[in-house]
């Protein structure tokens, strides 16, 4: 027999704690970034210009919008509007897909130019630029993985909502998935200017 105990605030607090660990996880890469930027400022802005700002900006818009839709989904379920909740969830997932597809094209373009971790061409561009792109791939890769996980999570919650397992008075699961999704957005908010927008 399991002891049924319900503590929504506790569950949210636990989620926040988990998000802290995610932030620290990413911060390892940001530390490396900060140190390398201090060492190679010029190379970094050169390298930054090799990234396609349009891809970056579009993805920023996509993620900000998805953050909005999932936040709306939480309000919707609180007000008992299940149908709207579902629509908003699916929009969020669609935006996650758009983000990943966008990323796929961006990376394919870069890889076809011979820029990827460990490539010879990258090595020839010199130390600072190599570091920039290594970090870019690893950070964006880790972020992409989070987009994927977050999208899946929201998908699961949407299905559960449709089945009536997540309801207007039992929606912690949706709330926590939304929190996770916002984290994905937060990381991108920093990633975007640091990698795409360094001045020349």
């Amino acid at each position, binding site marked *: *027999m*399991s*002891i049924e*105990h319900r*503590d929504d*605030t*506790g*569950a949210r*607090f*636990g989620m926040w*704690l*988990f998000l*802290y*660990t*995610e932030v*620290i*996880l*990413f*911060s*390892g*890469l940001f*530390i*490396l970034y900060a*140190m*390398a930027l201090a*060492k*190679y400022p010029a*190379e970094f802005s050169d390298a930054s210009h090799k990234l396609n700002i349009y891809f970056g900006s579009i993805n920023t818009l996509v993620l900000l919008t998805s953050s909005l839709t999932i936040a709306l989904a939480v309000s919707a379920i609180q007000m008992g509007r299940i149908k709207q909740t579902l629509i908003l969830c699916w929009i969020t997932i669609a935006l996650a897909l758009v983000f990943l597809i966008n990323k796929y094209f961006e990376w394919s373009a870069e890889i076809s130019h011979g820029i990827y*971790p*460990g490539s010879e061409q990258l*090595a020839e561009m*010199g*130390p*600072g*630029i*190599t*570091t920039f792109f*290594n*970090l870019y*791939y*690893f950070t964006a890769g*880790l972020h992409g993985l989070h987009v994927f996980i977050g999208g899946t999570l929201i998908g699961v919650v949407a299905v559960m909502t449709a089945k009536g397992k997540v309801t207007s008075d039992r929606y912690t699961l949706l709330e926590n998935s939304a929190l996770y999704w916002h984290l994905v957005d937060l990381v991108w908010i920093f990633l975007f200017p640091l990698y795409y927008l360094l001045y020349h």
Partner: protein
Amino acid sequence: MSESTTYTGFWQESPRPGILGWLLSTDHKRIGIMYLTCIISLFIVGAILGLAIRLELIAPGETIMGAQTYNATFTVHGIIMIFMFLIPSIPAAFGNLLLPIQIGARDVSFPKLNLLSWYCYIVGAILAIIAIFSGGGAPDTGWTFYVPFSTQTTTNVNLAAFAAFMLGFSSILTGINFVTTIHRLRCEGMTWGRLPLFVWTLYATAWIQVLATPMIGITLVLVILERVFGAGLFDAARGGDPILFQHLFWIYSHPAVYIMILPGMGVISEIIPTFARKPLFGYWAMAFSSLGIAFAGSLVWAHHMYASGMSDFAVLIFSFLTFIVAIPSAIKVFNWISTLYKGSIEMAPPMLYALAFIFNFAIGGLGGLALGAAASDIHLHDTYFVVGHFHYVMFGGGGFALFAAMHYWLPKFTGRMYNHKVAVIGWALLFVGFNVTYMTMQAVGVAGMPRRYYDYLPEFTTLNQVATAGSWVMGLGLLIMFVNLWRGMCSGRRVGKNPWGATTLEWEVPSPPPLENFGEEDPVVTKGPYNFKGVVADEY
């Protein structure tokens, strides 16, 4: 138990029968027992490797294994002892067993997550063992995985690093669970000022687990990525910086040493009042020094890097902060000792281990001061003095605290008592052997013998032989201790609720505790944790 001699509490009460009742159980006590079993098993494996290291070092040159095997042996010994034994030992095993009961709760906040964390632990441990026997051979990087060596060696570093990553994830989940539990599930009347000190140390530890562990995660992932892609993030020729790896590594691994010692300090803070029959001296000082250690402990990581080529300014700051962390530890030692003053002291086995803890930890900690000072660390860094230091604090501190906890709470969780005389013999051998082994290691380190040396110059022979001999005495002591505990658990005399006359909540429930801990009614607490007035020990 008075009502029935066959009462077995949570050992029998389970929604599912048999082995699945354990493997799928979300009961914190069962998970704690599963953790304890695995941790002790892995400790024995690690200890046997330690014995092998000592045997190899009994004479210069090759004695029982070649250099490659030796390097793999101390690496695996270190990885097992740190990631699989000491970090989860007290928090995951005894924390799970006790935390909910001590705060008057039925379980932790996220029981399913708790089980998941155990599975992460098991998967990590299994992967680590696979890493030893597959691929390019057992990892040979040292437990510190320093680049560039770790990105170049052809041994099975990837899998070992991934295993450590999983173990870290398990530790994070435990941390999240404990912080939330302590905030949300205290029973009525259990104010912050009434928390047992063990809970305070678990709380401080859990925050370190949450905020520091992800750093080792990303660091190890980067080592793996480096090995797979050859990207050159830490390669100077390609703009990387090998010293940055060390920063990332120690940002976690220094706070980790406090994950290893803080819960141990909590255990000692429970045992000393019980056997002195006096409230712990300086409750708030003890509570806040735990938080202080946890916080200040995250400011000192680069004291492992004075000789690394780091800037001298960083040496200045980190050396200063290192000494600051020593202060809360000193406060704890003084408070424990003054608790004894005018007490009524009983030298039961848990108390012996607790006093040995204080002695060993003082030696190890004071040795830490010699390492914290910049000039003396230059000589001592990466010598056997460091090896001596960390065995003193980790084994003499963390390990002894675990043994103290096992002797203290075994009656509670099995309802049976071990043989006290045998326990004292085991303790004495362990204590003497321990000090002979590691005191000698400190001496040979001061004389200049580097660590991670498969072979050494003849002038270090005598001391190494003494250390090896000491390790045998210690091994014998451990063997006696484990056998005694095992026999006590299976066939010892039955005990009642409160064999020691202790005061925290777990001693008010039957031994072993029932599945729901407190039955139908949640407990209500009306006094502080160490109020011995009117508490009498059950006869056994």
